């Protein structure tokens, strides 16, 4: 909880960080309450007073962002999609950092053969083309939102592990590690009580970048049409718009998801940048 509080405090110091935090917080709130305040279901078809399907209705009081070619309310789809984006982003980022952190800690601390084995695994994953791998995996299994999250976690920890390992290798040479050793601390104590807290700023930065990357990737998968068919995401809204070839006739269909992805990802990036700028020059100055 302490690291979370100081993270907010640090990010809040810069203007871009503050604006980004507000935007991200807003998206988070939408993701939680979105499906409850959405006026229509994500795949619900809307009819006009005469009982005719409302195809490609332009924005109006009843449908703030208009409707799709199949008569679905775009605002409602956007609200449901916010939940998808946040769920996928946060879970993937968390999983990525937990796996990457542990791989990096263990490889960097123990070195030698353990390091060699773990880093060769990382190297193999680094050679894996990210998006094609996930698409192939999705075509082999069922196109499920959880599969997407797991697949992204499986690949994305590779860079976190590398960064963390480098940091651990320098940390383990520090004198306070030798000091901990003389107090009787064992390897687990040293890894998780002495070294891990010093890696936390790095882990937090990793989380933000993984979050942004996961949201983009999920949108890409959705846009390419490989997403979960039962879940509306901002990427799948774009896919529907593109596939219907109605993008020029109905710009209100394309712009909301496109802009939303852009704003959310940018805000997450800026949060990471704002945090990194403060902690990088002198780690000691924070707190």
């Amino acid at each position, binding site marked *: 909880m302490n690291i979370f509080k100081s993270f907010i405090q640090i990010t809040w110091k810069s203007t871009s960080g503050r604006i980004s935090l507000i935007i991200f917080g807003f998206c988070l709130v939408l993701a939680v309450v979105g499906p409850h305040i959405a006026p229509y279901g994500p795949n619900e078809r809307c009819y006009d007073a005469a009982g005719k399907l409302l195809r490609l209705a332009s924005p109006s009081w009843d449908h703030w962002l208009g409707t799709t070619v199949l008569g679905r309310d775009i605002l409602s789809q956007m609200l449901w999609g916010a939940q998808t984006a946040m769920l996928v982003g946060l879970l993937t980022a968390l999983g990525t950092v937990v796996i990457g952190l542990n791989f990096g800690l263990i490889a960097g601390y123990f070195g030698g053969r353990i390091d060699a084995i773990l880093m060769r695994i990382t190297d193999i994953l680094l050679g894996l083309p990210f998006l094609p791998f996930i698409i192939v995996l999705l075509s082999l299994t069922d196109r499920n939102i959880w599969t997407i999250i797991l697949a992204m976690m499986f690949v994305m920890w590779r860079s976190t592990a590398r960064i963390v390992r480098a940091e651990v290798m320098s940390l383990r040479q520090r*004198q*306070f590690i*030798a000091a901990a*050793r003389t*107090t*009787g601390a064992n390897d687990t104590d040293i890894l998780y009580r002495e070294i891990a*807290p*010093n890696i936390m700023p790095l882990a937090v930065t990793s989380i933000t970048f993984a979050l942004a990357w996961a949201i983009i990737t999920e949108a890409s998968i959705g846009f390419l049409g490989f997403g979960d068919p039962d879940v509306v995401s901002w990427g799948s809204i774009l896919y529907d718009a593109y596939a219907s070839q109605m993008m020029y006739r109905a710009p209100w269909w394309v712009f909301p998801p496109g802009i939303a992805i852009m704003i959310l990802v940018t805000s997450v990036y800026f949060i990471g940048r704002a945090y990194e700028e403060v902690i990088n020059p002198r*780690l*000691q100055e924070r707190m």
Partner: protein
Amino acid sequence: MTDTPVLDVRDLEMHFSVGGGILDRLKLDRSGLRLETPVVHAVNGVSFKINRAEIMALVGESGCGKSTVAKTIARIYQPTAGEVRIEGQDVASFGFSDLLPVRAKMQMIFQDPYASLNPRQRVRDIVAEPLLEQTKTANERAEVPARIEQLLTRVGLNTEHAGRYPHQFSGGQRQRIGIARALSVTPGLIIADEPVSALDVSIQAQILNLMKDLRDEFGLAYLFISHDLSVVHHIADWVGVMYLGFMVENAPRDVLFARPRHPYTRALLSAAPSIKTKRDIEEIVLSGEVPSALDLPSGCPFRTRCPFAWDRCAQQRPHMQDVGDGQTVACHLIDEPERDSI
């Protein structure tokens, strides 16, 4: 002395293999291809004892192995050979888990108070660390917070300092935190590796006096590593002089400063600018470099720089011999005093 010494080190050796991978070590010469294993002889057969409430100082130049002795006894390194008896028990070959009870009797203070405290732990967690390793039951652990407050007060800090991080303290205060950490398990022996050399001179005396007071209060024994002779003169009861991983002279402080016997000790004392003891010894100025610990000289380790060296010094390694008053010296000049003139 009927008491068992707190620390009894016998023929301690610490060698480090260097040279990296197989390809770096592969050498081709006249006898063919062979695999070299270069070894740094950091500590070569050092013996000494420390009794309860005594302070033993190890002095010598940088790289003479004095810090390595400290770290080997504290078991940051695994000794190559020799005995390390803590209150009579030889722990030199103990594995990690066997050492845990030993750590309750022996703690260490480090040289750099900035590097030896974890920047991301609060003072209370740093100080509690040895205690938490030693206590496993909830009942024992419940007493830890009170003990920490007591320790912080004892070393001259406030109890409200417990919630702060190390970077909020000055060097002297940080070293007090380090001392509180070492004291937390009430050890009999504290190994202090240059505890004041990173501090301002004005702070050094405060820390040294604190260490002396703690010695008197708890009957602590210190192994005190230093290169600063004035500090050693201030605090030590016994002084051991090291050169190239060998102990060349070991004596009670006043005897050593008044009557140094080994040529290296004499050179060291005459090179120190601030020590003004009533001595009438000719000044010995050393020239040349310390030989490499990768390739020790034959015979006496000091012969390459000794102004008195003769052929015996190259053939025979001198052993520590008693010259009275508790002073022991490893030098052939003791046998042939007539050579002691330039």
